[in-house]
């Protein structure tokens, strides 16, 4: 059992939680993830580690309430327990030798992009951050990003926060203005990562993406998280989750990601009703 020691709503659908897991906190690095189960009988879901405090023995996760499991998780309060919390899994994001980096975050993906930006900043790299959200209400981690970025661009789909437009608009402008990066690191929804990669390919800038496919065990056993990268089969859980974005077959990843959409919709409905009943 793992205790939730802190909980904060970052926006109406995104929750930040700190979970007491001293052994994981001791080992965790940016880019790695955990697999958790909320309760007995619950499903196993992967969540990328947003932060960790080695002294306090806590691991921070930031998640969007999109399905039944994240809804159940969001309903937990500080002091409550979840049954399983496994990690740190996957390979850490490679930051060695990077001196100029553009970090691109989309939506809740910013929760994973932020620790990477922070680590690069601490290592002395020049960090340009471009983050995008649908609207003002959904913006998360703005101050945090500003603190660790040499340049910061906030984009929104409707123009209610920062600039009106997509992250690719800002990135294209930077590249057109002659900015050169050792690497672009893009973390967000699959379509965003796909279009960032399409853009950076034109400018021939190496781009790393963090993939978040459906997983069960997270140790290489089930093969559910397999992707095609450079024409070869890769498992996100053990070979990733970071990959060379120019090699990833995003269309395949999107279709695999939607395999259980109907089931998920039903489960979400069911969880909604259950949580409503509990609240009554």
């Amino acid at each position, binding site marked *: 059992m793992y205790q939730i020691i802190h909980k904060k709503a970052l926006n109406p659908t995104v929750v930040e939680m700190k979970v007491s897991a001293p*052994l*994981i906190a001791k*080992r965790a690095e940016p880019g790695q993830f955990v697999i958790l*189960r909320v309760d007995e*009988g*619950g*499903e*196993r879901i992967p969540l990328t580690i947003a932060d960790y405090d080695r002294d306090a023995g806590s691991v921070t996760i930031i998640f969007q309430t999109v399905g*039944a*499991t994240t809804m159940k998780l969001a309903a937990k309060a500080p002091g409550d327990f979840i*049954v*399983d*919390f*496994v*990690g*740190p*899994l996957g390979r850490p994001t490679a930051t060695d030798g990077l001196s100029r980096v553009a970090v691109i975050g989309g939506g809740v993906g910013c929760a994973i992009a932020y620790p990477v930006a922070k680590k690069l900043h601490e290592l002395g790299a020049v960090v340009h951050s471009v983050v995008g959200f649908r609207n003002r209400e959904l913006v998360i981690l703005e101050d945090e990003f500003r603190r660790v970025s040499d340049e910061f661009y906030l984009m929104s789909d409707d123009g209610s926060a920062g600039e009106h437009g997509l992250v690719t608009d800002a990135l294209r402008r930077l590249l057109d203005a002659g900015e050169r990066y050792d690497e672009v690191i893009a973390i967000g929804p699959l379509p965003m990562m796909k279009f960032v990669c399409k853009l950076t390919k034109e400018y021939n800038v190496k781009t790393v993406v963090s993939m978040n496919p459906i997983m*069960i*065990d*997270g*140790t*290489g*056993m*089930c*093969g*559910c998280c*397999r*992707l*095609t990268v450079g024409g070869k*089969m890769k498992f996100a859980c*053990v070979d990733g989750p970071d990959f060379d974005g120019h090699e990833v*077959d995003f*269309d*395949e990843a999107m*279709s*695999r990601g*939607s*395999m*259980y959409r109907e*089931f*998920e919709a039903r*489960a979400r409905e069911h969880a909604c009703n259950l949580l409503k009943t509990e609240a009554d």
Partner: protein
Amino acid sequence: MPNMSPKMNEMPTLSPEERSKCFSEVALGYTESAALDEAARCLHCKNPPCVTGCPVNIRIPDFIARLRENDYDGAYSVISESSSLPAVCGRVCPQETQCESKCVRGIKGDAVGIGRLERFVADRHNETHPGESANKEKNGHRVAIVGSGPSGLACAGDLARMGYDVTVFEALHTAGGVLVYGIPEFRLPKSIVRVEIGNLEAMGVKFETDMVIGRILSVDDLFEKGFEAVFIGTGAGLPKFMNIPGENYSGVYSANEFLTRVNLMGAFREDADTPIMRVQRVAVVGGGNVAMDAARCALRLGAQEVSIVYRRGEEELPARREEIEHAKEEGITFRLLTNPVAVLGDDKRAVRALKCVKMTLGEPDASGRRRPVEIDGSEYELPVDCVIMALGTSPNPLIKDTTEGLDTERWGGIVTDGDGKTSREGVFAGGDAVTGAATVILAMGAGKTAAKAIDAYIKSK
């Protein structure tokens, strides 16, 4: 006088109609009278060949003799001397190619039903002595076991009996390894595994789940924490794929994924949180026990048509005869001498068919089996909405990659001497992590052998 009937007492089973719709255990077990009748068929050979056919050399005629005298506890203790998981092995051991294949009664008629008798004795024991502990004084030495599958459980049990303070680390949220994620409920009820694990806990073995050794702690960390020896029983969990086009379409599963969703995560239950695709026409590629398990699970989930697609012939099917028979009775179609060449998808990248080619058997290959050869122009499409790849597994590289000085074979197996000793001092290994995918009983035997070697190693320090 022995019972000279040439026939083995039948094992009662659920009817194919009944069982193909549920996950209840298929084989129901002997009644007491059937067990006693079967036990009377044993001739109690002076030099019993059955014992040599058993990978862990259970004193078979001795346990059967006790059984005949209604001394069920005595029979159980004879088996326990050699086996840590009698209720499991009585169900999943391929007895027909091991002990029973050597039985003298098998020369004229059926062998003695040794596996069925073992199961009877174990079930009887678990019903009458739940969670009994053999409290043994601890010797103060700590041993870590990595992986809670058959080899790890066997190693843990033997070490605990010798007085060691044993901790088992398991990556998943439930202990049991392949016994819980792989073998389906209808072949090995999970309650049986829980009883076996409960017995170990009663003996003082500690289980730590959610612990991926190689990530949260390394093998070196375990030594630093005060463990004097480490046993690696991490199995062979990495699924193989065919590398044919379309293998990543939605609707293509590895058998590991499919079985894990069904068995470990309980996806067959209507109220399960873990989803599984409710498919109608399924092709399972492969001919081993795992392929049979996956096919029979798919059927139980409501599929209308389930096929085994295997590139060699009936004779070459590596699965146990009993499993093949059960699968056939339940209505699984066997498409033999058939090899998939591509998975075909629709515009949504979901599986719509498996493109296959017919094969014929040529000259024997390195494995001694006749090599399947494609028949030109025999390609055809098998319409399916799900494909399950059951092509075998290889060892997980996580421990190898994070443990310096641990020698492995090119294909990933950990190198050991005959007793489970690895190239690293104090590190032992056994089971599928060493041999590649094999049987529960071989893994269990390797765990027991390593327990002896660990005992000798710690005593010699």
